[in-house]
């Protein structure tokens, strides 16, 4: 057990975590250079495209240290985006230490801080690594000072590295051996193992990722999940070595996987404790942080017939994404679908894209909402995250909305721009402090509903990419909430409704009408689009009817082309929703999602 190290790499987005992981994997020769694909742990397309890690991956690296001993290094990759704090916390709970990666030119950012705090909560040993030292803009001394001042860590222990150029990798490997503690565990105690992740394999069912705290586990064991007392017979255990590598047993301190014919989603709970059915441990592992969804939206299949397919897809997706929650929902306009809870807007986008790419689903997503508290005249309190369930306004005594504490770190020359952005979003500036002579941390209290759309993108824009952002929900505050409805030819489309602050209704309504005008295809008749609050129309736009729709020329070369177009349009229509006589394309629903920008 002394030869095991369990660790994560924590970093702000883009500070080079995936590249460092790649280099460490290469340093251990478990993948040949020839077969090496950059960012090997980011195995979802969307992760590679966006350069972010969403789904944590684990890899067990056999490593021969300078002291001549053979070690098992379990590198647990963690997501690097603000929405995925929960995934980070699950990964960190199975580690003894962490590499804190900091970009030598960017310095300490909001998520560097947030992730460090998470790691410290788990009592992890921290090794600071200053990355990208090869960049001309690298300022090592400044970053060292930030490590001392902002993070309260000893900067003398920081390793200088360039993962891209392979500089400092050997030092990192040795530091993991020397500075991080081996797991403290009792291999002879009853089995106690922690589920920190799981994913779905179409051939083997659910693959459970776990860390053995005490005891040992092997194929043939009858295991029990302590949250629901479900029992399974273990078919296979093994280590993650890029591919799954079966082994005889997994002992205390190790990280591995198990396959036990677990077919249904609900049986695997991340944070659950695995023990032996015959000889259980006395107490389960204490507390994982509960992932609390903060953004809610409904997902509908474009074709009503695809509802059951979507159900299966969501079930499978949930296997890989414990933070996704959903329940059945219905809409007059869109039929059967699901109300889903997400950790944030990026999480929502990731789920949407995965449903479309990996599961080939054509879906419509409704306007995201936060959870409001509505107090009725009779004093009863209701949680509302779905505009469809918004009560009759005359019965409402008071509405409350969630507020966040936002921490934004920027070079101070962007202070004015950030201030303007946050005030526009109904933010309240609570505090600011200089972290260094030119970098400032600004603290705002902002309604959550104001940041779930495009706040992060906007922040990046106004700070030319230098602004970093982290947040936590603090409390609920009294708000003036209204429901904005969209009417198409006089018919209310429930899936386009949204709950907004009264002061925002006019603007949102106007932009929604303009956007919809551009997305709804012209038809034979005039289409009126209206935004309404209560019975009052607050915005409108019109899609003019066709005055002609005819292809003038049709000779030899035009016939096949036109036929192919007609066939394509026929397919496209299956992706449209009829509202009364009006056809709404998927893009119309998406357009309303983006109504927050001024353009």
């Amino acid at each position, binding site marked *: 057990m002394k030869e095991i190290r369990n660790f994560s790499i924590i970093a702000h987005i883009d500070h080079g975590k995936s590249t460092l992981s790649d280099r460490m994997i290469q340093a251990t020769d478990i993948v040949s250079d020839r077969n090496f694909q950059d960012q090997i742990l980011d195995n979802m397309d969307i992760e590679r495209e966006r350069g972010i890690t969403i789904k944590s991956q684990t890899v067990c690296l056999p490593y021969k240290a300078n002291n001549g001993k053979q070690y098992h290094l379990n590198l647990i990759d963690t997501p690097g985006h603000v929405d995925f704090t929960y995934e980070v916390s699950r990964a960190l709970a199975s580690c003894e230490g962490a590499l804190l990666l900091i970009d030598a030119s960017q310095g300490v950012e909001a998520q560097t801080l947030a992730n460090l705090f998470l790691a410290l909560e788990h009592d992890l040993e921290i090794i600071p690594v200053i990355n990208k030292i090869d960049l001309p803009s690298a300022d090592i001394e400044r970053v060292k000072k930030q490590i001392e001042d902002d993070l309260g860590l000893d900067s003398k222990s920081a390793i200088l590295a360039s993962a891209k150029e392979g500089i400092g990798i050997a030092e990192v490997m040795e530091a993991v051996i020397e500075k991080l503690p081996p797991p403290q565990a009792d291999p002879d105690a009853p089995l106690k193992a922690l589920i920190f992740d799981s994913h779905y394999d179409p051939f083997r069912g659910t693959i459970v990722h776990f860390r053995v705290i005490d005891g040992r586990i092997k194929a043939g064991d009858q295991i029990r999940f302590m949250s629901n007392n479900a029992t399974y017979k273990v078919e296979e255990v093994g280590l993650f070595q890029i591919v799954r590598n079966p082994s005889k047993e997994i002992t205390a301190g190790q990280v591995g996987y198990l396959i036990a014919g677990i077919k249904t989603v609900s049986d695997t709970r991340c944070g659950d404790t695995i023990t032996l059915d015959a000889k259980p441990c006395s107490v389960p592992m204490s507390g994982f942080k509960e992932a609390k969804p903060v953004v809610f939206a409904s997902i509908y299949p474009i074709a009503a017939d695809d509802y059951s397919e979507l159900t299966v897809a969501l079930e499978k997706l949930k296997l890989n994404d414990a933070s996704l929650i959903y329940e059945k929902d219905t809409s007059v306009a869109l039929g059967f679908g699901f109300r889903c809870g997400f950790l944030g807007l990026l999480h929502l986008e990731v789920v949407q894209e995965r449903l479309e790419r990996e599961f080939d689903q054509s879906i419509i997503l409704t306007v995201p909402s936060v959870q409001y508290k509505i107090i009725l005249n009779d004093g009863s309190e209701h949680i509302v995250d779905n505009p469809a369930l918004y009560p009759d306004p005359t019965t409402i005594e008071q509405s409350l909305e969630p507020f966040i504490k936002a921490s934004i770190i920027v070079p101070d020359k962007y202070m004015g721009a950030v201030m303007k952005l946050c005030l526009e979003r109904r933010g309240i500036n609570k505090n600011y402090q200089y972290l260094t002579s030119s970098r400032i941390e600004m603290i705002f209290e902002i309604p959550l509903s104001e940041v779930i759309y495009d706040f992060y993108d906007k922040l990046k824009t106004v700070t030319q990419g230098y602004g970093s952002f982290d947040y936590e929900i603090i409390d609920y505050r009294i708000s003036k909430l209204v429901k904005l409805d969209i009417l198409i030819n006089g018919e209310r489309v429930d899936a386009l409704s949204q709950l907004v602050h009264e002061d925002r209704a006019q603007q949102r309504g106007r932009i929604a009408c303009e956007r919809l005008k551009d997305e709804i295809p012209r038809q*034979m008749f005039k289409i009126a689009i209206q935004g309404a609050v209560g019975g009052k129309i607050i915005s409108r736009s019109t899609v003019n009817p066709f*005055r*002609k*729709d005819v292809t003038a*020329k049709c000779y030899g070369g035009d016939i*096949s082309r036109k*036929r192919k177009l*007609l*066939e394509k349009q026929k397919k496209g229509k299956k992706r449209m929703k009829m509202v009364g006589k009006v056809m709404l394309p998927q893009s119309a629903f998406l357009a309303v999602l983006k109504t927050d920008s001024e353009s």
Partner: protein
Amino acid sequence: MQETGSNLGIYVHIPFCESKCRYCDFYSITDKGLISNYLSALQTEIDLMARPDLKSDTLYIGGGTPSLLHYKQIGQIVDQITMAFNLDVTTEMTLEVNPGTSTVRDLQDYAAFGFNRINIGIQSFNDDYLGFLGRQHNAKQSIVAIEAAVSAGFNNIGLDLIYGLPNQSQKDWKQDLLTAIKLAPKHLSCYMLTYEPHTPLGIDHEAGRVVPLSDIRIADMFRMTHDILGTAGYEHYEISNFSRGSRWRSRHNQKYWNLSPYVGLGPSAHSCSLPRRWWNHRDLSSYMDALKSGHLPICEDEHLNQEQQLIEGLYLGLRQTDGIDLKSFQERYQIDFQLYFSRALDQYFAENWMSIDEKNCRLTVEGMLFLDRIIDELVELID
């Protein structure tokens, strides 16, 4: 639908132009140095495609600008075609010419080769619009060209016109129509200006540098065209085509709309022999390369299933004022047109977009304006 006929139509694409017109998306190039290589490739293609066993009752040499070739080269093509296919004196033989490219002498020679129909790319009788379209001739040359064709003895003359240009008024277009009527061609093709992607005009439109005339105005021009030409004795037999009575319709072009077989020769040319459609490489060098190595220069080859054939039957049938022949439609597709599409048809009858009698179902002039939308809806009803 008219009697489709099993006789073959032959089209030859001459891919050369003096310069490219801004709106045109037909394949052509301006490097005349390639003409002789092209002609030998064409010779090979004609030999490979030879069907002396089938009667061919139309030959259409279009482009591009066929009249850019030397008259002897045109004669040579006709000779080669005559040897490879089964043509006779009744064959409709059309040559496309552009104003400013052919003299009376040339036209007399064309007649001597057997051409009995001349189609002239007039496009407009207004020099400003000709400039906008990027044409290389002026209105005066257009009139000279028409007169030359008449004096060379051509009785069957067709003119192409374009309307719906930016800022064009009803009056401007009416003037063009009246000028055309005065010249008494047997056939008129009147096209709404289309902004084809990748053409200079299409790119300008995409970039917002050209503001198209509004659909309302264009629709009005379409109605006016129907009325004015109708009064002058022209029959509106297809969306964009008019003739002085049915006998002067373009027999060749009707083959496209009536699903008759045709062979297309030259780059980008399309051929049809249902359920098969195929077409040649668009680009001249791929076309010539294939033929140089003795292969047909086929770019794509389709075999249409029943549904695809039905889609085409609907679209092409409703383009023509003869409309869909209910009996042959039933025979061809095993579908009762009126019953099968009844969900949509009632609305069209109510709107007066469509009319039906015992034999045919056809679009009205109003209905023609919405042909694409109507077809779209009918296609959606196909299971």
